[in-house]
């Protein structure tokens, strides 16, 4: 018999916070995925909102290329405020 597809589950724990990945589950369709996610990941009121995303639809960066991929940001320390010298006595900057 055909297996149910895999869904990744994201939970917003409270209003004002973003959805965070909590795990995955199998379900035949989106509606069942949501219901299963409720039963599996929010049995103790862990969330006020749920996203389910077909796992096959997620595009991910590759760990092998992580160095090359994220390197361009490494030498741009001037993007951080601590890079700059602020003269003594200057406030609110």
């Amino acid at each position: 018999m055909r297996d149910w597809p895999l869904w990744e589950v994201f939970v917003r724990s409270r209003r004002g916070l973003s959805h965070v990945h909590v795990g995955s589950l199998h379900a035949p369709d989106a509606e069942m995925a949501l219901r299963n996610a409720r039963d599996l990941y929010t049995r103790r009121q862990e969330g006020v909102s749920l996203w389910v995303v077909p796992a096959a639809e997620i595009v991910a960066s590759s760990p092998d290329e992580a160095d090359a991929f994220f390197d361009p940001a490494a030498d741009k320390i001037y993007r951080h405020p601590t890079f700059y010298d602020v003269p003594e006595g200057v406030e609110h900057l």
Partner: protein
Amino acid sequence: MVGVYGNDFTAPDETAPRPATGDEPETFRALLEGEGRVEPRDDLPDAYRRTLVRQIAQHAHSEIIGMQPEGNWISRAPSLRRKAILMAKVQDEAGHGLYLYAAAETLGVDRADLLDQLHSGRQKYSSIFNYPTLTWADVGAIGWLVDGAAIVNQVPLCRCSYGPYARAMIRVCKEESFHQRQGFEILHTLSHGTPAQKAMAQDAVDRYWWPSLMMFGPPDDDSPNSAQSMAWGIKRFSNDDLRQRFVDMTVPQAEALGLTLPDPEIRWNDERGHYDFGEVDFTELFEVIKGNGPCNAERMAHRVRAHEDGAWVREAANAYADKQAARAGADVA
């Protein structure tokens, strides 16, 4: 082979996959040495992957088979309160199984295959669930002792080197403490009830004490895979250390319950700073692992029947999903 609630050990005549340590990718070594976490798409040595699949799968199987001994008492719980609590606990165990199957799947296996391997006996589950639940007090003893031992085994796994397993264990551990407390409460109520109730509680503890100690696996000198699991950051403490930790936690709790543990050798050892306890009879454990426990056949038969009885539900859900998708497709066109 049996992965006991996050422990991994074999019966003496069975073999675990032997790792070839020489050919580990450098990136993997570097991650472990930095106490870093390994994630699914990293370059993993084959033996590490196989060990984890086996341990996580057997852990998952233990969670879902573990629903049976307690599920047996849901319809006969002594009050509505106890019934609601027991249902919630058994439902949690189903959830633990699902978290763990999902973690195993990140290693490239299918849940359906793992279930097949459980049903055909190629993968095992914790031997503790091959003991029967004869009385209501057994539900208390399971919560207190079996979930208690599981917690001791599982807490260190929250720091396991494999990210998805560690994250699943964090969720599991958060849910376990209620399991242990409700069991303790059942026994406390019984042991402060009528003499017959107290005797029932004592009998349950007498039967579950030694099997609970066996949950930690064979003694360290007899546990050939432990060293490799430790080197890989899957296991953090030896079987004997965890067993000792469990005994140290449990002895004072038994006193609070007013029940005795069925081991005349238990006594505080000032020098060691631990409780001494008697020797565990591991021949019994290995017999149960081999399939000769009191309930092995019954647990498997029930599991397979439940799976087969559910086939039409899975098929119907697929048919419904197909129909909805076809309709949505027609609407777009």
